[in-house]
């Protein structure tokens, strides 16, 4: 092992018994190695608490070193930017004991992650000129490309309510959301879709109706407008007109495109 690999191994070792042994053999000043070890953990904790603010509050992550250490070991950062670390966190939590007790944690983590991604995602707004395709082209030939910052999360947990309970700017609304979340968590879980979008700079979280969700999943799967409309034709509550107006206002669409014939 090279000198640098050796040093990294000492810093990332999370087995206290073998660490003491390895440290002794290395000849390095243990105080120095421990500074690097503590800094790694502190950086990782800070990064996760910024990227996953809901999880951080749900778990009081200041003291949850085990979780952070476990994640560091299983999915070490490899981007050189702590903000890009966490793609696997939702999955990691899902495989952890903690998710058995608090089943909503993985989806809360997924929501935090998508909001974080949207926050730093490319600035995109609708290409208005492409809107004309709705009149000039056949729906079979039209694709609607969604804004890059739009994410759809399927869940059975009240993750939108839990998010609001922690982050809504209005205290009264936070309280209300907390109550709604509690009620939902103690009743029969309901499958639904939560959408992250970014109208301006602040990402927004919306709970979709089943028809909206189906329609948007169809667009995301690059199906044509005609096909996507067909998938929701059996719903009474879906209106393409209303969806389109809202989608433009919420910045959900990047452009309309004529698919190659």
């Amino acid at each position, binding site marked *: 092992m090279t000198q640098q690999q050796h040093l990294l191994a000492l810093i990332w070792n999370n087995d206290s018994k073998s660490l003491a042994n390895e440290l002794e053999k290395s000849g*390095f000043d243990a105080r120095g190695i421990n500074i690097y070890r503590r800094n790694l953990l502190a950086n990782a904790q800070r990064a996760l608490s910024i990227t996953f603010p809901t999880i951080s509050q749900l778990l009081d992550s200041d003291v949850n070193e085990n979780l952070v250490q476990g994640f560091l070991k299983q999915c070490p950062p490899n981007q050189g930017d702590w903000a890009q670390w966490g793609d696997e966190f939702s999955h990691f939590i899902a495989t952890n004991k903690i998710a058995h007790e608090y089943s909503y944690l993985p989806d809360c983590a997924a929501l935090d992650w998508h909001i974080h991604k949207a926050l730093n995602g490319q600035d995109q707004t609708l290409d208005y000129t492409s809107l004309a395709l709705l009149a000039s082209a056949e729906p079979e030939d039209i694709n609607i490309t969604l804004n890059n910052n739009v994410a759809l999360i399927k869940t059975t947990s009240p993750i939108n309510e839990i998010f609001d309970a922690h982050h809504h700017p209005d205290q009264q609304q936070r309280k209300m959301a907390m109550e709604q979340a509690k009620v939902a968590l103690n009743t029969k879980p309901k499958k639904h879709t939560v959408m992250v979008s970014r109208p301006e700079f602040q990402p927004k979280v919306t709970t979709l109706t089943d028809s909206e969700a189906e329609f948007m999943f169809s667009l995301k799967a690059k199906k044509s407008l005609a096909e996507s409309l067909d998938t929701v034709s059996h719903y009474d509550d879906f209106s393409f007109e209303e969806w389109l107006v809202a989608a433009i206002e919420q910045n959900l669409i990047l452009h309309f495109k004529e698919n190659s014939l």
Partner: protein
Amino acid sequence: MSVESKDVLIGVGLRHPHFTDVLTQPKQVDFVEVHSENFFGEGGAALSVLNQVREKYPISLHSTSMGLGSEQDIPRHYLDRLANLARSIDPFLMSEHACFTWGQQQGQLIHSGDLLPITHTNASLDRMCEQVDKVQSILGRQLIIENVSAYIKFDQSYLSEAEFLAELSRRTDSKILLDINNIAVNSMNFEGGNIKQSVNDYINILPINSVAQIHLAGCTAALPGELVVDDHARPVSDQVWQGYEQALQRFGPIPTLIEWDNDLPEWSILIGEANKARHIANTLFDRKI
């Protein structure tokens, strides 16, 4: 943006809690410095803030993750993001640390998220020269490379860090970023703590025209028996101010930056530290204040 002045340019490290201050308060420093990686996103509010700051202040991009001394090659994805940022921000300076960050664990690429110390030997110098050449050619810009606080010593090192940086600068046509507090931290931890002497020894090894920026910071005192940690959490200490004066005497009017990262004070206090640096420089170079 280019900066031309015969006065010493004084800047501060710009951190997130000061975003509103920097854009709404009157201009009080000559430039600001940000950590490159904090703006690696493709868009969003942070980048928008930086683009607005850029209209008001020259920007220095200080990177923390490049790991120029890594045995592992710097991944292309990292360099591409940095190059993109440099293209859009057009900084007047770009800097990094003389440390390593990249490595492997179980065959997987990992990033240490820390400025890890390197040995100072001819082999490690060759390696860093190779990477600096590569990065400079990708960026099309000169790099300024900083001395670091190190918390362990390597028996293998036979060059001093100052000798290492002097030679690196000569061979790669890069410049040196002299962090006075890092010299002070290493002095307290490993050299008996005569900071004045340590700074003196250090700067005398560096060629006069090799230093392109100076960093000043303060850190929390160590508990008895523990090492001092460079936490950038305190005002600049008297000994570091003294070291700053020594450095200015040797290198002339070099752009100077106040770094403060943890337990961040109000903007006005940070500006106060910058004014202190300006006062020292102006007094030394006998310019009207």
